[in-house]
């Protein structure tokens, strides 16, 4: 093969190579880089050396990046004093690092040989640092000596949003009824306005407003319901992480399992790569509950007092009923009163009304412990009517009349704490339903 042919082939090879390179160049340039300017921050340094190094030592370390890495980095850049060891104590993620230095030589200025912490001020310097990324902080910026910028591979700029209903009825453990509210977490890459290229898992947490829903005794650790397959979330921390990452639409669907107690609950969702946390307040409540209307046929307060019957520090408002139940109650009280009048009673007994339901219904934990009896006072359809030996109670001689009046109206009463001189009352199902 002569030289001409060889030269020709070489030219063709080079031509192909050029074509390939020209094709690859755009691909290389498409490898996106996230670039941010460095910032100045007080950081661990060392007396004297820190100053001359200040323009060339970007400290992108984030605790607990091990100190050996810093050591190696400094050594690589030939700025390490021989026989001097730097130890990174901690960084706050924003460039502020606490560094210890151990040196075997005397430093300028007569500083003592040995170990010093830079928190003394003597050992600190304001250095250019790469800021800690807000998105994907586990992937730090690295200082680019070529352009003086802090860079890392371009990240997805993910944001999360929560959608779904904002109200649900309380659950009822006694009837094994768990009311669930479907919610949708949607993750979007803000750079592309599309679902994330790499699907992410969603983390959900649950908080409760302590004294919401008619409970005056609440604390932040009150029962707060659960998420998905979890019946309950024990704390404000992340309660549930989606077992599967976001689907092709960037969504994760999950249920909020309502607790028994009414209140305002806040559901939060985020993901490891998300730049935000989405929150959604949800009211767990029974709708259409209203304060019992004042009437001359029944008493809502103790005789001669403004104290609400049955009001406690745990539940100051205990007189909420549904509209339909209110009508039944009024009718029952009217009939009971007028029946006494028709039968010649000169001083008719007014019904003295104790617990109905809380403002938003749900579990009426009479002792303020989120458990225990009173389980039918959930939906504003049941009321306790005083029938003991205290003032205003239905006298035993009228018990049958009360039951008769109630039965005529389709109301179902029975005694609770029967025989107890203080607690006996007529548990009265105004709509003949146990709820």
């Amino acid at each position: 093969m002569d030289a001409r042919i060889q030269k020709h082939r070489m030219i063709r090879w080079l031509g192909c190579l050029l074509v390939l390179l020209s094709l690859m160049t755009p691909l290389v340039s498409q490898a996106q880089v996230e670039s941010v300017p460095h910032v100045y921050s007080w950081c661990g340094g060392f007396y004297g050396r820190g100053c001359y190094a200040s323009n060339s030592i970007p400290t992108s370390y984030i605790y607990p990046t091990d100190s050996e890495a810093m050591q190696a980095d400094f050594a690589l850049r030939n700025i390490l004093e021989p026989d001097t060891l730097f130890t990174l104590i901690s960084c706050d993620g924003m460039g502020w690092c606490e560094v210890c230095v151990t040196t075997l030589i005397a430093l300028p200025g007569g500083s003592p040989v040995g170990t010093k912490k830079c928190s003394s001020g003597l050992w600190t310097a304001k250095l250019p640092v790469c800021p800690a990324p807000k998105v994907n902080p586990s992937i730090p910026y690295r200082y680019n000596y070529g352009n003086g910028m802090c860079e890392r591979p371009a990240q997805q700029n993910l944001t999360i949003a929560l959608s779904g209903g904002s109200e649900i009825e309380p659950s009822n453990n006694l009837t094994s009824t768990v009311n669930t509210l479907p919610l949708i977490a949607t993750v979007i890459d803000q750079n592309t306005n599309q679902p994330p290229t790499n699907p992410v898992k969603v983390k959900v947490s649950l908080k409760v407003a302590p004294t919401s829903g008619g409970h005056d005794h609440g604390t932040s650790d009150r029962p707060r319901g659960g998420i998905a397959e979890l019946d309950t979330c024990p704390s404000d921390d992340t309660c549930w992480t989606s077992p599967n990452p976001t689907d092709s639409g960037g969504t994760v669907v999950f249920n909020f399992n309502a607790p028994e107690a009414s209140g305002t609950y806040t559901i939060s969702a985020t993901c490891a790569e998300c730049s935000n946390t989405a929150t959604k307040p949800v009211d767990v409540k029974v709708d259409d509950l209203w304060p019992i209307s004042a009437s001359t046929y029944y008493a809502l307060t103790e005789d001669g007092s403004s104290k609400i019957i049955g009001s406690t520090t745990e539940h100051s408002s205990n007189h909420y009923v549904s509209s339909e139940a209110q009508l039944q109650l009024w009718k029952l009280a009217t009939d009971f009163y007028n029946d006494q009048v028709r039968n010649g009673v000169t001083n008719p007994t007014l019904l003295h009304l104790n617990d109905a339901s809380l403002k938003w219904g749900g579990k009426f934990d009479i002792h303020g412990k989120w458990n225990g009896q009173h389980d039918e006072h959930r939906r504003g359809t049941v009321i306790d009517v005083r029938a003991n030996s205290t003032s205003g109670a239905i006298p035993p001689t009228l018990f049958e009349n009360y039951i008769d009046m109630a039965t005529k109206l389709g109301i179902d009463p029975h005694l609770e704490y029967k025989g107890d001189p203080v607690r006996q009352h007529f548990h009265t199902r105004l709509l003949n339903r146990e709820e």
Partner: protein
Amino acid sequence: MRSIFSIVGVIFVSLAIISKAYGLPGESIVFDPTSGNYVVNYLGLDDSGDSDVPTIPRQAIFVPATKIYPIVGSVFKLRETEVVYSYHLSNGSNSPQSLISFIIDPASDIVSSSPLPKRRQDIAISAIEQLDKIGRAALSTPRNWDGIVWTSDAGGLRIAWGYSLLKTPSAGLIAGSSQDGFGFSSKDIPGIGVAQFRGRTPVFGFVDEGPIGEIKNQLRNLRQNNFVPRNIAVPTIAVPVPFDAAVLLDSIRAEVATWPAKQLLDPAYAAQLDRYLAAAADGYRHKQTKTCKEHAENLRQMLAKEHHFLDHDDEDNEDTEEHKRATRFTIDRLAARVLDFDLRYVLNRMERVEEEHKKR
């Protein structure tokens, strides 16, 4: 009468067995055949509020209000355009309890000085007392009884009478006694309704807040069915205004269609009745009033073959010996009386419409 108690007892014992099967260990509802009462053994919650798990053994005695044997007679007569309904009530001579409650629920409507609302949501609290007066005035109520009209959960009206002097030991309709004078008028023609009767019982209660779970459900079933049911004639079928025989016949047909399930009507016989009712309605719809009338009369003749004296409106539904001899089992006698009355009502109104046309 004993057989009825036995049947009721069997039902309740069955419930008790079911409740035993599904209640917590140690919980049961047991029918006591000697007393006719139910012994409810259940686990109650302690009073601390610390737990939702019942652990404390409790007991309650439930005395059913079904130890009565009510016999009710329905009389319904047409007076002008209104039907007058009245009921005769007696309590069987062996009834352990006195009868204190008589409830009709639902009735479609009754005649009153102002229309009575049929749904609770149509009632304002401020109107309750006025409605109460209107309702009471619309009822015939015997002495010592108290009658009210209220809304029915089923839609329509709930009409309830209760004995008003419950302080007296012999309150109510004691065994072997009877009482007339319950009634009202209605523009609606009769169908068959179920009246609820209750006997006098001790006040029921629990020493705590009662059971939870399955025992509670079983007890609820007992208490919600704590009455003796009896079929009576009740305003059920609204008469269309302006009068339309076809529409009314369709309504009668719909009412009759419910009777086989209530065991008032043999299904095969029901099919025959239905064909005639449909044909009568179609005849009127196609302006063949003569055909319509013929079908209605044929129906009446069919009924007359099953029961005699159906058009004796002043009589009630008591099964006298004379009636029993003439009774066949294709259709309940009260049902036959009601249907015969309804057909006569249709024929009567058709006559009047025709007379009015002739006058014009």
